[in-house]
C-alpha cells in the first residue's frame, strides 16, 4: 500500500540495522514513549534485531494502560445506570475495573457501545434525546482535539444529554517524571509522532536542555522506528542532546495550531493519576470551568470513587520500564489477555499484551 509498504521494506530495514551496528560503539538504553510504537516493535520483532547493547524500554504511552483503576470504576458505575448509553473506543471495553469490565456489563444489559469517533457519540445524543450519552475521553494529546471538538459541537447544539468522562494525559510531564526517577535508566527517547503532529515539539526543547537527553520525534512503521533509534544512538554517541524529527512527513515544529486551539478552548491542565505510576503534577487535561456541564464525573456524582490495584500486578514497573513483562510472576499464568490483572495486558498496545500475543514466554 502506498505510503505504508515503503516504510516496511526489508532491504532498507537491513541497511538501517547495519548503520545502527556501525554507529553503536557502546550499550545504550532508549525508551519509545508511545504504545503504538511498542506494538510495531514487538509485532515486527524489531527489538530482537537490534545490535547487542541497544536496549529498548517500553514506555507509558498506552492510553488504555495508564487510565487509573478508579477512573475505570467510575466509568463502570456510570455505564451501569439505566438511563445511560456509554460510548467508548473499542479497547477500553475489556479493561477490568475492580470487579467487572464494560463488555461484561454489556452482557448483563447495560447500553455500552463502541464508537469510532467522539462525534459519533454526539450524534447518538442528538438521535436519542431521552438517553444520557456519555463518552469515555481517554488518551494523549492525539485524541484530545477530537474530544474537544465533540464538546464544542454538543455546546453549539445545546445538548443537555451529552457528557464526557475525562481521563486525558500529557506526554511531556510523563517523560519528566521518568527522568526524575532515581533509578532512571533511559538515555534517549523516541517521542510519539502523532502526539507531536498535534503539539509540535517545542515543549520537548526545555526537557532536552535541562536533562541533556536526546529526543527524536518518531513515526510508527518499522523503518520509522529503526531510523528514530539510529538518530537517537548517533546523538548519544556524539554526546549531543537535541530534539530531532524523524517523522518529517507528518510533524512540524509548531504542530497543528488549530487542534491546539481546540484543546485550549475546552480543557485546562490538571494533576492526573497514572495507573501504576501515581499522580504526576500538571500531567493531564480536564474540562475547563465553562464546560463543566459536560463533565460526566460531576453529572453522575462519581468523582469520589476510589480503588485499589491487584497486588500481583507490577504495571507501574512495566510502564516506567524498570521491568519487562517476562520478569513478572503473574505474566502468562495469573495474568493473560483472556483474564488480565492489569491494563498493560489488555490493550494490544500494552506492553504485556504485545509480549504475550507475540508469543514471548517467561524464562523462569
Amino acid at each position, binding site marked *: 500500500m502506498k505510503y505504508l509498504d515503503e516504510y516496511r521494506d526489508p532491504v532498507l530495514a537491513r541497511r538501517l540495522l547495519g548503520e545502527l551496528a556501525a554507529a553503536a560503539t557502546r550499550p545504550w538504553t532508549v525508551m519509545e514513549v508511545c504504545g503504538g510504537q511498542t506494538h510495531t516493535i514487538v*509485532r515486527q520483532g524489531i527489538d530482537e534485531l537490534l545490535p547487542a547493547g541497544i536496549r529498548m524500554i517500553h514506555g507509558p504511552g498506552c492510553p488504555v494502560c495508564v487510565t487509573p483503576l478508579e477512573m475505570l470504576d467510575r466509568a463502570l458505575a456510570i455505564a451501569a445506570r439505566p438511563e445511560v448509553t456509554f460510548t467508548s473506543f473499542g479497547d477500553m471495553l475489556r479493561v477490568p475495573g475492580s470487579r467487572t469490565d464494560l*463488555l461484561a456489563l454489556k452482557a448483563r444489559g447495560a447500553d455500552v457501545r463502541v464508537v469510532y469517533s467522539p462525534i459519533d457519540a454526539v450524534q447518538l445524543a442528538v438521535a436519542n434525546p431521552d438517553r444520557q450519552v456519555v463518552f469515555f475521553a481517554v488518551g494523549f494529546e*492525539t485524541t484530545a482535539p477530537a474530544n474537544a471538538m465533540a464538546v464544542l459541537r454538543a455546546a453549539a447544539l445545546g445538548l443537555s444529554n451529552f457528557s464526557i468522562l475525562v481521563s486525558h494525559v500529557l506526554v511531556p510531564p510523563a517523560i519528566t517524571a521518568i527522568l526524575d526517577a532515581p533509578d532512571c535508566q533511559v538515555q534517549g527517547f523516541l517521542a510519539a509522532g502523532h502526539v507531536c503532529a498535534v503539539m509540535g515539539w517545542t515543549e520537548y526543547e526545555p526537557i532536552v536542555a535541562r536533562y541533556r537527553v536526546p529526543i527524536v520525534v518518531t513515526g510508527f512503521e518499522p523503518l520509522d522506528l529503526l531510523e528514530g533509534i539510529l538518530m537517537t544512538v548517533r546523538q548519544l554517541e556524539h554526546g549531543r542532546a537535541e530534539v530531532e524529527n524523524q517523522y518529517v512527513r507528518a510533524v512540524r515544529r509548531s504542530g497543528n495550531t488549530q487542534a491546539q486551539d481546540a484543546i485550549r478552548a475546552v480543557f485546562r491542565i490538571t494533576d492526573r493519576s497514572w495507573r501504576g505510576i501515581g499522580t504526576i503534577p500538571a500531567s493531564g487535561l480536564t474540562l475547563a470551568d465553562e464546560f463543566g456541564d459536560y463533565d460526566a464525573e460531576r453529572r453522575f456524582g462519581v468523582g469520589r470513587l476510589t480503588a485499589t490495584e491487584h497486588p500481583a500486578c507490577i504495571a507501574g514497573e512495566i510502564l516506567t520500564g524498570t521491568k519487562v513483562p517476562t520478569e513478572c510472576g503473574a505474566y502468562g499464568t495469573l495474568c493473560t489477555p483472556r*483474564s488480565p490483572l492489569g491494563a498493560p495486558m489488555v490493550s494490544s498496545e500494552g506492553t504485556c499484551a504485545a509480549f504475550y*500475543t507475540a508469543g514471548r514466554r517467561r524464562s523462569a
Partner: protein
Amino acid sequence: MTAVDPAQATCPLPVAEQERILLGHGSGGQLSAELLTDLIIPALGESTPAGPLEDAAVLPLGDLEVVLSTDSFVVSPLFFPGGDIGALAVNGTVNDVAMRGARPLALAVAYVIEEGFPLADLRRVVSSVAAAAREAGVAVVTGDTKVVGRGAADGLFVTTTGIGQRPVGVGPSAARAVPGDVVLLSAPIGLHGTTVLSTREGLGFEADIASDTRPLHRLVGTMLHAGGAAVHSLRDPTRGGLASALTEIAGASGVGVELDEHAIPVPAAVAAACEILGLDPLHVANEGCLVGFVAAAAADTVLAAMRACPEGSAAVPIGSVVTDHPGRVVMRTLVGSRRIVDMLIGEQLPRIC
C-alpha cells in the same frame, strides 16, 4: 511495589465475566474454542465421536462417506457489497462441506424472522439463496421458517445444513498436516470482515472493497484431482481469520507452522482499514478463500491447478509445516524477525490510536 508470588495472590481477582455469554464467545477465537471444549462437547458425552474439531463431520455409509455440516448466519447488516446473508449462508455451508473433500449434494435452509421484517428484504434474501445454490450446483431440499416477536431477533437469522459425499479414504482433515507440507492460500485475505464492519459502521471503506463470499467446492475438487491424498488439510478461514485456521490445524496435527508475512496477500483497502481501526488482517473473517496443507512433492502441481480456477487464480504459497513449536504458528515478519501468531481472544476491538 515488589513482585508478588502468584500462588500467594488473593481474591478478589478482577477477572472477566464467568457467568454469562459475551459477544466474544462468538468471535471464532479463543473464547469460542473454550465454549466448545469446556461446555458443549463435554455435555454431549459419549454420543460424540472423539477426534479433531473439523468444519464438517464424516459419516461412513456403505462404500461412501457422507459429510455433514451446519452453520448459522447472523451477519449485520444483511446486505453488504459483494453479497448478503443469503449468499453467505449457502456458500458458508457449501465450503464447510467442501473442506473435508466432499462434493456438496443438498442443503437445508432455516429462517428465523423478526416480526415486522420487510417482505421486500426477505424476497431479496431468498432470491439470493436460490441464486447462490444454483451457482454452487447444490439443491435446497428442505427448510423451515419461524417468526419471533419484535426485538427477539435482529431482523433475520439464517441456518443452513449441508450434506455431501466423498469416496472413502481421500479426505483432508485438520489432523493430517505433517512436517514438510507447503501451506497454500487461495486468495487475498480480510475482504469479508472489513467490508461488513465498514458497511455496518459507515466507515467509508465499503466503496473500495467487497466481500469475497463464493463457493469453493470446485476449487477443492480441482486440488484433490491434482494432488489426491497429498492434500492433507483444508480450511476456510472464516471467523477468527487466517490466524485461527492455521493455529487450529497446527494444534490438531501436532505440528508447527512457519509463515512468511511478505507472502500473505492483503488488498490495499483491507490493509488501510485495518491500519486505521487497529485490526490485524490475520484475525479478520474471510468467506471466499481457503488454506491447503499439501505434501511438498505435490505442492507445485496443486498450486498450478488452483491458479487455473477463477477462485484460486491468485493462489500463493505462504509458509510451511515444521516439527518445531508444535501447535504454534510462527511468522517471519516483514523486517526479518520472528513472532508467534496467536488466535484472537474475544471480539476484535478497535484501538484508540
